[in-house]
């Protein structure tokens, strides 16, 4: 069985999106620059010439897109932050292999937590 304990205090449930208030405040502050991007007359213009040769076209514009933008390099900063969260948050005991992640609570606390979970008979993550 797996046990995972969170020693973090529980918070009230919230929606998984940016807080509406924050975003609105954001919007008000930075509204001006966005308005500049909205052109009043945004109609496709009549061309000056009826037709032109390929030399009058931007040749370099052909190779402007990258096919694969999967970064297989680990985002170091993110990885460190996530490890920290994991380390601070939980330990995991697997039945056959003991996987102890080092963390910062005392041995005593750890043992007592493990006992209380066992007593509850639950396998809660």
């Amino acid at each position: 069985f797996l046990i995972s304990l969170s020693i973090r205090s529980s918070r009230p449930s919230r929606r998984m999106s940016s807080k509406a208030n924050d975003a609105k405040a954001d919007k008000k502050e930075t509204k001006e620059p966005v308005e500049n991007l909205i052109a009043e007359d945004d109609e496709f213009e009549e061309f000056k010439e009826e037709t032109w040769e390929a030399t009058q076209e931007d040749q370099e514009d052909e190779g402007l897109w990258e096919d694969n933008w999967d970064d297989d390099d680990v985002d170091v900063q993110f990885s460190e932050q996530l490890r920290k969260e994991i380390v601070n948050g939980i330990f995991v005991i697997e039945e056959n292999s003991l996987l102890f992640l080092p963390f910062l609570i005392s041995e005593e606390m750890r043992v007592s937590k493990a006992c209380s979970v066992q007593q509850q008979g639950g396998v809660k993550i």
Partner: protein
Amino acid sequence: RLLGGLRLSGLNRVSMSQAVGGFLSKVQQHIGRENGRQVAKLLEMVGVPSGVKQAIRAAGRSKGVVNMAKRQLRGPWGPFVGSYLVSASMLDANRGIEAAEAAKDLQKFTIKLMDTLLSAANNADWDAPRPGGKPANWYLPVVNSAVLQLRLSAYAADDEKGNTDEQREMLRLIRELLVCCIRKQKAPPKQSLKMGVVFIVNHIFKICFRINLLRMTHDLQRTFADPSIPKIEEFPKSQAVTYKYFRGRIQLMDEKYSEAEKDLEWAFQHCHKGARKNKMRILQYLIPIKLLRSKKPKPRLFQKYPFPQFEVIMKAVQSGDLKMYNDALMHYEDLFVQQGVFLVMEKLKKFVFRNLIKKVYLTNASISDATKWQIPLLYIRFALKICRVEVDEDNFDEIECMVANLIYDKLIRGYIAHERYLVVSKKIPFPDPNAAPTQQQ
């Protein structure tokens, strides 16, 4: 230069009518030589000295130019040029409603002109080459000038009145001209009026998009189902690029992303390099589609063509930063909605989440290689917290829901162990988004 050095010193009535007369002679000369482009340029006042232009505008506003044109120009050309110059002069004087009135006459005389010249072409002997060497449809540039004048007059009139009545009426009138062009003709296609369909449809598209009346754009495209009409690429570049820009936008609205990408890419590549604003307009629709199809614009694209709104969304997608993405989407919501790309940008959300989970997977793998296929849902919750996204602490419902959608969309290969893990495939846990079926829409 076009008027052979005619000068105007002071605006007295005799010189004015001389100036207009001289102008009309030049027009007649070019008509006689079947120089369509030159006639069009004259009518649009390209290269016309300002004194002469003033005289014409005055004659246009007083409508005196109509009789002058009828006297000097032969057949249907007289009333055509007369009504054109009246409409143009009214437009120039910001008298939109009168410009539109004159434009309606112009439309009638355009039909008359096309009928006359078309009859002549149909009655001609097509075994012999045309005298003068010009194609039978030499006057199409002039028709384009007329349709442009119709469109701009409608804009001005409706701006004055504050509604879209004239533009709707003009749509009907311009469609009549389109019908003229696709009639059966004796001339071979490239010399026929069928070479006028693209620019006429482009003008119609412009009005449709301006007044947001898009339902007729689909049957307009059916015009090109006619096998006797050459392929778009065989029309002059300015017309083909414009057409593909609009068709690309229509396909985008229909969620036909693959076709939209083709058209917009063609338009972008073949757009004249000096027409920078048009290039930007094409990119405005091409970039969102490319992002949706997991093709990243290289940095030099944004250096050359700045689009801060797309750049930040792209960064958010790449780094799987859900908060940056949500914030950017909210910040630019008005802009995206106004441009009609909001839905596309919203569809990128799943890629943000997919990339975030991939980062969790990689971190997990670095902690414990043996169990890297099992990603605790808790770790995903931690990752969202790092992104400063608020997340339910009581259960994993929201996370499981988003993960389930990614699995359904084939962006992740795996299954969910309820409230415990995302278990991913050992072969290709994160398939290339390009290969995913959702891209094949």
